[in-house]
C-alpha cells in the first residue's frame, strides 16, 4: 500500500449538516470514500491508501481539481483505493460531497 495525505484549502465549505457519508467499494478499479465533518471550514484533509504505487502526482492533480470545483471545506476524506482510474476517483469524490449535503 502507498499512503498519501493532502491538506487542501478549498474556497467553499461543504454544505449540509450530516456528520459523515460513505460511497464506493474497495474493488478492482473502484475505491471507497469516507467523508467526515469536523475540520475548520477552510481546510480539507484527504488521506489515501492505494494499491497502485507511484501515482502521487496524478492524485494531486485530481484532488486539486476536486477542491477547486466542489464544496469540500471542513471535510476529512479517507480513501481506500483498489486501483481506480482518475475519472472514477473524481466521480466518487463528487458523489461523496453530494451525499454529505443531503439531510
Amino acid at each position, binding site marked *: 500500500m502507498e499512503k498519501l495525505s493532502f491538506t487542501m484549502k478549498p474556497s467553499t465549505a461543504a454544505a449540509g449538516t450530516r456528520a*459523515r457519508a*460513505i460511497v464506493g*467499494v*474497495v474493488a478492482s478499479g473502484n475505491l471507497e470514500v*469516507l467523508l467526515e465533518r469536523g475540520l475548520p471550514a477552510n481546510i480539507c484533509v484527504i488521506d489515501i491508501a492505494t494499491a497502485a504505487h507511484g501515482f502521487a502526482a496524478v492524485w494531486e492533480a485530481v484532488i486539486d481539481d476536486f477542491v477547486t470545483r466542489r464544496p469540500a471545506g471542513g471535510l476529512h476524506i479517507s480513501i*481506500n483505493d*483498489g486501483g481506480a482510474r482518475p475519472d472514477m476517483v473524481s466521480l466518487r469524490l463528487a458523489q461523496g460531497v453530494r451525499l454529505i449535503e443531503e439531510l
Partner: protein
Amino acid sequence: MTSATSWYEANARQRVEALLDPRSFAEFIGPEQREISPHLAIFDLPEQFDDGIIVGRGTLKGRRILVAAQEGRFMGGAIGEVHGAKLTGLLRAARSLGEPVLILFDTGGVRLQEANVGELAIAEIMRALVEMRMAGVQVVGLIGGRAGCYGGGGLIAGCCSALIVSEQGRISVSGPEVIETNKGVEEFDSRDRALVWRTMGGKHRYLIGGADAFADDDVLAFREAALMALAGNGRLDAGVLEAEQQRLERRLHRFGKAHDAVDIWTDLGVREPAEIAGLATDEFLRRVTDKRETANGAR
C-alpha cells in the same frame, strides 16, 4: 430507490437502504469506527473500513429487525475475523433482544488470507445462529448477489429459518472452480455458465427445496419475500431436524443418479424442463410451484 433496482447490481449499502423502511437503518460499528481487518496489511492488501459487512438495525413495515449485508465486491464478500465477528455479534444480540435477522449473503466463503480465524468465525456464526433459532428467533437469508453464497456462507445459509433466492443467486459449498480443480473438467466445467447456473443457481435451488422463495432480481421483490418469510414460524427442534434428514435421504435416493439438473426437473414432472433456464419469473413460478420439492423448517 424505485422498484426497478436490481439486487444483483446494487451494493450492500444500497440493498439495505432499499430493503428496509426509508431512513430506518442505524448501523452498528460503522465505517467511521475503522474496525478493519488486522490481517490484510500483512499481505499489503487494500482494506475496507467496514471489512465488507454492514450490520445494524432498522424496521421492515414497522417491525424492528436486525440486518447484516455482505459486500460481494470487496474480496468477493469473503469472511475474515472482523467480518465474522460483526455477524456473530449481531446474531447474539438478536437472541437476547428477540428480534429477527435478515442476512443479505454475497460471499465466496472464508477469506483465504485469514483462513484460520475465518473458519473459526464460520463456526461461531453457525453456533450463534442455531442458538437464536432454538430460542425461537428467526433468521432469513437473501441471496442474489454477484458472489453468490459459497463455502462457509453456504453452510451458514443452510442453518437459516428460510432462504430467498433470485435467478442470479447461487448457493453451494464448493464453488465451480473448486470442483473443477479437485475433480477435473470432465466432472465440472467451471467456464460453462449455463451449467453453473442450472446446478447451483436460484431456479434449481428453489426447485429442489434448497430455497423457500424465489424472487425477481429486484430490491422490492426481495422486500416482499422477506415479509412473507418472516410470517412463517421458523421452528427448530429435534423433530424438525429428523424430518429434514428424512427429506434429504429421500431426495438423494430419488435424484442421486441424475447427471444433470435437467434430469431432476424432468423427474419432478416439470413441463418442458429444457426451457426452465430461459423463463421469466412469472412463467417459471406458474410451471413449477406444484412440482417442486418443498423446503422444510430445518432447511
